[in-house]
């Protein structure tokens, strides 16, 4: 049996939060640089260059990329050989709380959706978990902004609407979102499962690396076609036109009911902040328990 210490969870969550709010992954920077080179619309190009300049300022002056430092989304992959003698979710939230207070990040979470009283430390995070083989704990975090989240959608299509129905729904979502979702976007699409599963699939999709190619041929072809069609919508950076509306489309699917075709579209704004860490459990001596 193996164990990951509570303090390592807290420290790593805090470290990842502070890093990710002011640093984009290199693949995202590369995508914006490429887009700026290829953009025909002068205003769109100027916005892309400002996004890149913002990243340099955020990094060099220690300022968050965006004032909306998000609601924290956390995906946990928990090795089956690990044991926990503490509350893992509580530890994640302690890490979040420390990051938002000590790091001068914006506290954007209210205790109840209707009384709107701020929790003052940006907790609780939204935490999902699944089990994996082995003795590692993998923590993925993403401070997710409210603007792009507000424009995300879910619809229960009829199976007869099929592939075209899915494509039209994704395009409609992105057109309606316009500048509100802060394009250029990363688009996460979940198809199948049921009502909540397809939203979960879409959320997981936006955390996939941009160069990640899905093994599923149906999903892979859909990603290619959607990428092309989305970038022809002329939504463009901040919705002011141009051929850079998205820098990535990721589709995740799951089996579903014969009566259903659930589709969820989760939009990630251009401030595509995320990080992950792999914590390897240490073997614990449990002879006394035998």
């Amino acid at each position, binding site marked *: 049996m193996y164990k990951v210490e509570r303090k390592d969870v807290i420290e790593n969550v805090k470290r990842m939060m502070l890093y990710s709010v*002011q640093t984009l992954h290199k693949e995202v920077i590369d995508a914006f640089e490429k887009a700026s080179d290829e953009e025909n619309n002068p*205003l769109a190009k100027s*916005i892309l260059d*400002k*996004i890149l*300049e*913002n*990243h340099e*300022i*955020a990094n060099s*002056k*220690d*300022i*968050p*990329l*965006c*004032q*909306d*430092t998000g609601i924290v989304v956390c995906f946990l992959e928990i090795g089956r050989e690990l044991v926990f003698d503490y509350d893992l979710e509580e530890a994640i939230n302690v890490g979040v709380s420390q990051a938002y207070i000590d790091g*001068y*990040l*914006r*506290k*954007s979470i209210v205790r109840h959706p209707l009384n*709107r009283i*701020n929790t*003052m430390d940006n907790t609780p995070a939204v935490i999902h978990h699944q089990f994996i083989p082995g003795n590692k704990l993998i923590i993925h975090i993403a401070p997710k*902004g409210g*603007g792009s989240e*507000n424009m995300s959608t879910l619809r229960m299509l009829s199976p007869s609407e099929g592939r075209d129905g899915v494509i039209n729904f994704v395009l409609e979502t992105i057109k309606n979102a*316009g*500048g*509100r979702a*802060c394009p250029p976007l990363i688009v996460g699409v979940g198809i199948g499962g049921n009502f909540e599963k397809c939203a979960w699939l879409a959320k997981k999709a936006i955390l996939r690396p941009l160069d990640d190619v899905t093994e599923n041929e149906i999903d892979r072809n859909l990603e290619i076609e959607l990428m092309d069609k989305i970038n022809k919508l002329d939504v463009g950076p*901040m*919705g*002011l036109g141009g051929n850079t509306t998205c820098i990535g489309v990721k589709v995740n699917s799951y089996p579903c009911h014969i009566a259903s075709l659930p589709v969820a579209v989760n939009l990630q*704004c*251009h*401030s595509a902040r995320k990080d992950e860490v792999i914590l390897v459990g240490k073997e614990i001596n449990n002879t006394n328990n035998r």
Partner: protein
Amino acid sequence: MEKKLTTPITDDQIKDLKIGDEVLITGYIFTARDSAHKLMVEAIQNNEELPFDIKNQIIYYVGPTPAKPNQVIGSCGPTSAYRMDKYSPYLMEKGLKVMIGKGDRSIEFNDVVKKYKGMYLLAIGGIGAKLSQCVVENELIAYPELQSEAIRKLKVIDFPAIVAIDCNGNSIY
């Protein structure tokens, strides 16, 4: 070539500005987003004073990150403007001239801007680190209990924005 705007904003300064024009704002602007708008409109409905003289002023839809000890302000990019559509007409009636935010507004809002000869400006979303470099003073003036949503008076120099709805009600969207 960007056009310079200096607060307070007069009709003369904005009458020739057209959608798509880039402007640089210098002077004082006031921050407010959802919660502060709700409180200000409640104040108007209760015949109470607004927390600042709003005539010919600019409201910037922003909830910044807290300033670190060596900073004037933290990250401070715009939030979506459409959420303020139901509050803005009350403030414009009291003399509010210009709003800065991101994204489109309701189609009916174009007429509101035209009626009060105002203007809606777009700041680029998600570049709050860069925009923070234009802010030289930051004073909390009302509703401190709202935390990041409190009203702040910011002194800005050459704050960049794009005309999205002009004083004749024409919209870039």
